């Protein structure tokens, strides 16, 4: 039996509004962004109301309190992913986290820099945020971008892993859970293959950290990125985690105040990690909001959340199995799979599917999900994607199944 999490829905003020057609909101788009509990909204507001000041700079009490709030947020977020707080860098988003890495690896002054002839490995199911930065890095440095393929069942094809991850491989950048398929990638095998050849592993944890317990030490990866807004936290904040001995070797990606050790007109030296990666007055209120979000999730318990989403996913897959017009894109079983379900409806374009669902108050994502290469590989113009979080329930699943039935009726689909 999974824990009953329905009591938590009331913590999210957005569910008190109604949407199209006067319907209550059924939010199945948490893969894009999650909703926020009131405690997170209040944490941000309280920062502004009671201790707003520029951190690390002022001699006054507010600046002290702001610095303390910001650094406590860092410690708290670090604890949430099993990291040391000096290894946690606050960025604006996972996109920025991944770009920071690609930029730093591209700087010849970095202690670990990508060189011509090096290989950077991604997969065919990466989000653009974990593909484009590496494409650009390869282009800038003369390195080669290669990738692991996917199987027809929406899993990673590991049959040629030892060819793809080879002695030329410098970096393996890979998603933890696919934002299209929901597939959870066997990171242990990836780490093993990378270690064998001395390559570094960068994990895009955007779709994992919000949904199940993630511990950087246990995973054994070298870097990890995720976004605050998908983990019940504010927009405008992301995390980049890296092993400190590696972060120390990287040049910063952006430059400005609060990240220097000394500056002259001719040059500068950098402060220590994590400070050297946080140029400028940081996103303080958002860090404090993110900290409140991970507190909230910790209270609920990540294993409970994972179980809850597992159950809903199972129900949805079972329901879709009964509908001959619906094809699920991605794993059909529950092994190594999270609460993201992509599907197509015969003869109806995803955009039209989404529109009909919207009419019933159901919010889903439609399109290529920022994974165009994957869509092309699958020969699809896009999919409709339902994704879960804590505030969803079995009723949401039934409502979705019923509404998809209406879609097929509305567009007079018959198979």
């Amino acid at each position: 039996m999974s824990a009953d999490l329905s009591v938590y829905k009331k913590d999210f003020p957005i569910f008190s509004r109604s949407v199209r057609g006067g319907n209550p909101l059924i939010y199945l788009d948490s893969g894009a962004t999650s909703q926020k509990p009131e405690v997170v909204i209040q944490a941000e507001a309280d920062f502004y109301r009671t201790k707003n000041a520029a951190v690390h700079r002022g001699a006054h009490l507010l600046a002290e309190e702001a610095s303390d709030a910001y650094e406590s947020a860092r410690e708290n977020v670090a604890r949430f992913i099993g990291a040391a707080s000096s290894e946690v860098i606050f960025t604006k988003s996972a996109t920025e986290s991944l770009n920071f890495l690609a930029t730093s690896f591209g700087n010849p002054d970095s202690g670990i820099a990508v060189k011509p002839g090096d290989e950077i490995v991604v997969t065919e199911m990466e989000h653009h945020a974990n593909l484009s930065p590496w494409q650009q890095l390869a282009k800038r440095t003369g390195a080669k971008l290669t990738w692991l393929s996917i199987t027809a069942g929406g899993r990673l094809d590991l049959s040629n892993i030892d060819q793809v991850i080879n002695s030329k491989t410098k970096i393996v950048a890979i998603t933890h859970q696919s934002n299209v398929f929901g597939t959870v990638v066997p990171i242990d095998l990836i780490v093993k293959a990378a270690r064998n050849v001395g390559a570094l592993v960068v994990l895009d944890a955007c779709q994992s950290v919000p949904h199940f317990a993630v511990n950087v030490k246990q995973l054994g990866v070298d870097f990890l990125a995720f976004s605050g807004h998908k983990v019940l936290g504010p927009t405008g904040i992301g995390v980049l985690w890296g092993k400190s001995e590696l972060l120390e070797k990287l040049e910063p990606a952006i430059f400005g105040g609060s990240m220097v050790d000394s500056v002259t007109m001719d040059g500068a030296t950098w402060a220590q990690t994590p400070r050297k990666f946080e140029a400028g007055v940081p996103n303080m209120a958002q860090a404090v909001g993110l900290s409140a979000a991970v507190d909230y999730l910790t209270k609920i318990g990540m294993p409970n959340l994972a179980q809850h989403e597992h159950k809903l996913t199972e129900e949805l897959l079972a329901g879709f199995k009964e509908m001959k017009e619906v094809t699920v894109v991605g794993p059909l079983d529950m092994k190594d799979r999270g609460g993201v379900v992509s599907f197509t409806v015969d003869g109806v374009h995803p955009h039209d599917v989404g529109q009909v669902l919207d009419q019933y108050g159901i919010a889903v994502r439609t399109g290529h999900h920022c994974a165009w290469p994957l869509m092309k590989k699958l020969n699809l113009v896009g999919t409709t994607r339902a994704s879960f979080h804590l505030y969803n329930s079995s009723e949401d699943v039934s409502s979705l199944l019923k509404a998809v039935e209406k879609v097929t009726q509305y567009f007079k689909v018959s198979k």
Partner: protein
Amino acid sequence: MELDSLYQEVILDHYRTPLNKGLSSEKDIQVHHNNPSCGDEVTLNLTMKDGFVKQITWDGVGCSISMASTSVMSDLLSGKEYQQAMKVLEAFVELMQSKGQSKGDEELLEDGVAFAGVSKFPARIKCALLGWMAFKDASTQVMA
């Protein structure tokens, strides 16, 4: 239902049985337009003659709105004098921006008025305009 104002029967008909779909072998110009946020794509072949739109053919993948609208456009503008085609295009764009406040000029837009409801759905306006913008691009290039 509000949905019916979006998916008029005319639209679904054009979607199921599109006009001028399939690219002609001859053309003055070919353009390719897409809508990166949803992935809809249209390739359009245009032939102009003596300042008149002689032929519009197209191919594409996309939602019902984008495909039906391209179908309607190709039918409506074929045979029209360039300036007149532009006038129709402007009327269609205006209709799309009307936020549900306009019914559209049926004399000018014919089947195009079926898209009046789209203007109430901001996310779909770009779908309805995809083929029209491809025509605008192509014809402007030919006439330049």
